[in-house]
């Protein structure tokens, strides 16, 4: 039987996302079938970085498939503005230093030849790691799948997560 693993990323912090993706790519390279789940702020690393006042275009024919657009209000665009994400713009959980921390951290990674998060996300995608985002998080935070840096991200619920984790040999939560 093939070895399988799942990773659940809840945190929007750079250090945790980096650890999750280093483990995911490493395991996938060693032949483990990996599935990554993103909940709450975990999906921030997959978001395309937009301008602060970027106009948000909602395509009901696509987004309506996994979101309830009728219950959207002012909070969804507000969250979008405050929580722009972007793999290279995540904060650190320690020593964030009001945004200086991630800049120094990126310099340190570059000097040490360690890949940064965006490169790891693309590597994970190429190695066949599957990405899933929680449907209620998408709905509540107003996330569009078209705004992500990787294609082939699926929107699923807890039943699929249960099936995948029960099938897997290991489940990591960050």
């Amino acid at each position, binding site marked *: 039987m093939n070895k399988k693993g799942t990773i659940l990323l809840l945190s929007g912090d750079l250090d945790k996302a980096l650890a999750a993706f280093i483990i995911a790519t*490493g395991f996938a390279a060693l032949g483990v079938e990996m599935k990554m789940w993103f909940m709450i702020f975990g999906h921030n690393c997959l978001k395309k970085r937009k301008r602060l006042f970027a106009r948000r275009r909602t395509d009901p024919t696509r987004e309506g498939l996994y979101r309830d657009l009728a219950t959207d209000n002012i909070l969804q665009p507000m969250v979008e503005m405050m929580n722009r994400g972007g793999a290279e713009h995540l904060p650190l959980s320690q020593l964030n230093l009001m945004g200086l921390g991630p800049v120094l951290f990126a310099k340190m990674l570059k000097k040490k030849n360690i890949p940064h998060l965006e490169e790891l996300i693309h590597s994970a995608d190429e190695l066949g790691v599957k990405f899933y985002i929680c449907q209620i998080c998408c709905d509540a935070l107003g996330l569009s799948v078209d705004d992500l840096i990787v294609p082939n991200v699926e929107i699923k619920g807890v039943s699929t997560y249960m099936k995948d984790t029960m099938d897997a040999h290991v489940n990591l939560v960050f």
Partner: protein
Amino acid sequence: MAANRMVDVMGKVCPLPLITLAKEVRTMQKGQMMSIVGDDPIFEDSVIDFCREGGHELVDTQREGKKVTIMFQV
């Protein structure tokens, strides 16, 4: 024995050698020889684990200071 494919991961750190290795091995056929050279301190362990997981046979390991060259059969 000559290698069918030479891969150089000098200067790359964990997990990049593994990622490169996995991508290269996918494009090769069973029975072909792969030679990989790297200088990461945990490079040798990584490649040995990779071979054991994938069922590849280690053929040769050469060490020159930090530089390690490993040959295995895909």
